[in-house]
């Protein structure tokens, strides 16, 4: 299992990477679904292009943060050209570490009153 030090070595994640990991946190998805999910969740503020998406997927995959899933949807729903990606255990740890890092930074910003007003999503 990857050590903590290794987890830390990925931080900070680029926004694109972090959003991809977030998109996969609740289940496996194919590329276009990831792209859609990220756009939806960020109200179109983070828009991934095909090049950026697959560049990041490639790096995340070779780092072991995500993996290709062997499970496929039912035949009628499946497009065989698509590949499905899932978040690995290590990927989850890295995503958690990144979220914690952000939270800590957020806390510090709050204590310095660098926050206007906490907004509820």
């Amino acid at each position, binding site marked *: 299992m990857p050590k903590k030090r290794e987890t830390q070595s990925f931080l900070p994640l680029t926004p694109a990477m972090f959003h991809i990991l977030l998109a996969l946190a609740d289940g496996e998805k*194919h*590329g*276009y679904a990831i*792209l859609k999910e990220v756009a939806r969740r960020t109200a179109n503020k983070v*828009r*991934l*292009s*095909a*090049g*950026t*998406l*697959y*560049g990041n*997927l*490639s*790096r995340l995959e070779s780092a072991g943060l995500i993996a290709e899933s062997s499970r496929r949807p039912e035949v009628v729903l499946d*497009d065989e*050209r*698509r*590949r499905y990606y899932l978040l690995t255990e290590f990927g989850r740890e890295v995503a958690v570490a990144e979220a914690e890092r952000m939270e800590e930074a957020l806390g510090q910003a709050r204590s310095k009153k660098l926050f206007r007003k906490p907004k509820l999503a």
Partner: protein
Amino acid sequence: MEKQSLPFSQKLFRALVRVLPFDFRTNYEGEMEGVFREQQRELEERGGFLEALKLWKETIVGIFSTAPREHWQILTSDCGYAFRMMRKNPGFTALAILTLALGIGANTSIFSVVHSVLLKSLPYPQANQLIFIRQQEKKLGIEDLSFSVKEIEDYRAQNRTLSGLVEYHGMSFTLFGHGDPERVRTGVVSANYFDLFGVKPLLGRTFLSDDDKPDAPPVLVLSYEYWKNDFGSDPEIVGKTFELNDKVHTVVGVLPAVPQYPNENDVYMPTSACPFRSGKAHLENRDMRMMEVFGRLKPGVTVTQANADVSTIAARLKAAYPKSYPNSVGFAASASPLQEELTSKARPTLLLLLAAAAFVLLIACANVANLTLSRMAKRERELAVRSALGAGRSRLLRQLLTESFLMAFAGGMLGLLLAYGSLQLLTDFVGRLSPRAREIHIDSQVLLFALAAALGTSIVFGTLSALFSRANVASSLKDGTSGAGSGRRQNRMRDALIVCQIAFSFVLLIGAGLMIRSLIKIQQVDAGIVPQRVLAMRTTFNWSKYTGSDKTAVVIQKLLDRVQSEPGVLSAAISSRYPFEPEMIPEWFSNTFQIEGRDLEPGQAPPVSTFASVSPDYFKTLGIPLKAGRLLAETDKGEAPHVVIINETAKRQFWPNEDPLGKRVSTDAGEHWVTVVGVVGDVREFGLDHPPSPEFYASQGQNAQPSTLIVRTIGEPRSMARALTRAVHDVDPQTAVTRILTLEQARYESMASPRVTASLLGIFAGLALVIAAAGIGGIMSLMVSQRIREIGIRIALGARPSSILQMVLGQGLLLAVMGIGIGIVGAVTLTGLVKSLLFEVPPTDILTFSGVGLTLLAAAAIASYLPARRAASVDPNIALRAD
């Protein structure tokens, strides 16, 4: 079908995706297209031109920001892998890098010379406009006749193609007022000489047209090197005065550090300051020639046009002054680019060396490809596993190319060091062939060349090894050994590479062999003198003190008496030159003459001979034997009848069937006659490879030209140098003594060019031989390892070790014989190129060819012997158990 209906946007997307690495595309291209299609579909539903633009912008930025990262990642991972592989095989790596370093180093160093001397334009503004003009007397075989003042005036006035025309001649004067009297190499030039070349002074000014007027105050311009070395870069030098030729000269400027053509000089003076050039004889006599002439083409004029122009002027001169240019001499004039003029002597040798160096690099490439192939045989399993794990074919090719480039790059760096180390040697060598040698250095273009050589090399051997390993990948996994079919193909490839190496080595060895044979032949030539224990020193008198012939004769006699009284001196002589004197060419001493009682037919060329002026003991001092008549005597001076001694070649050529003694000749159209009183043996005056020409020796007492003191000593001549210099200064302290050489040194120096060419070719050929022999050894060794089971079976079935030894040796020798066969064809085709550099050796010299063939065979036999012995001592039990 689908391709045809593909919308334009998809096609464009596919084209864009091609900037991504192959492996990335293999993995993701389909999916990326899918995503892009979905995005397009969505866009169509929602519509909007701005949205479409935004999508395209994001897509393009995304692809172009991903591509470099992906490429870089592959490169770093390949490099890391390659370094690990190299560390795992240190022997192979070191051998490959060293081989490549030798090949690239040899090429880089020779290229630095070719680039600086032959390719780079001269370091002057619009250097391609600079031309060299020459006059010739073609029927007399004189290719480079100097110019007289009258002729220069004519060419200057009549030409239509030149924006300027300047003259140059080199002199040695003695400079006073700066420590000991010093002989300074002086360039005597037209006032606009430096303007024509476009040289701006570092300090002060160059010459003005007023400096060139008769009776102008004498001025000097110093060369950068002289100013730096002799005056410690004195910034106050301008305005200082020195005495030369009894006149006070003022320094008006210092030149920048530019190469000086045609010769390097210490100082420059305008023509009016040269006591010879400004003398009446030179100013008025059309036939008193000693100058060289350079010109600058008018803008838009070609060298061909200028050539036609000067030819026309020469024809006009011929018509106007038939006495100076009789039909019989074949007078003509021509113009050629200055750059060509300065490099023509070096060109054949340098190109030969460049070709030789290229051969060494080819051999090195073949050898490293072979080494890599042999290693591939061991790595096939590894490559197959990588392939099975998903590495695409191009990925493996890229990996192998990265490995080969890293090795070639390391080899290139090491080669560059080698080139840097050999620079001084090459500069000295080329200095004998071209005045541009001082410009040789390693600049950015040479660095680029080394890099290109490394890159080219890695592509050649990397691709060769990758191509031949790829075929095996699939089969290796299946049967666990090298695939039989492709293994054979690989072996054939390796054999072919070895045959090529041997063939190239053969050609190189032939080149080196011919040059060495030629050098040996030159060294065996009888020079016609006894050079041992003879010292020659240049003695430059203060010309202005010895104006008349009589005064000079007196000081010569005084000098000889003083030198002869020195203990340890056997005999001494004064002469205008001596055999093997550096930088002397026969043209400078050639003269036409007429023989009394022999009229020339119309159009018949007059006889030509070289002339020297010597004191009576010259022949004794140099050991030149008397063949008939008498030698010169003390009494041959002043008003006594003028006499001359001729050599045997002159006798054979001009009086083949009669006794030359008592015959009279004239060099001034019958105004004065000199009588032949003796015949001496032939001397190779201008170098051992220069056949003796007809030679006339006049008496110093009647024709004073005291340039050199020659002394035969009882003991070691060099130890006498100081005492002799003192003796010269005892007679006249204003005499500069320079260039003290023993005749053996001079003889050795005169062979420098063929010797260095032979040495460099020898080094290249030696390298090639070692590389090729190592190649044969490696291949035979691999062959034995591959066939160890078969050999074991053979031995188990009763084969004798000696027959196994014979089999392996035979295979090695077979490769060598095939290589030699191809090499012979190559050598016969190519050796015509070296013909001009050979001395009395035919380019297809049987001795050289058979010697080189035997050497290569012996090398192949030695290299195959070790693996053969290993094969012969194979234990069948162990061999059969081995996988």
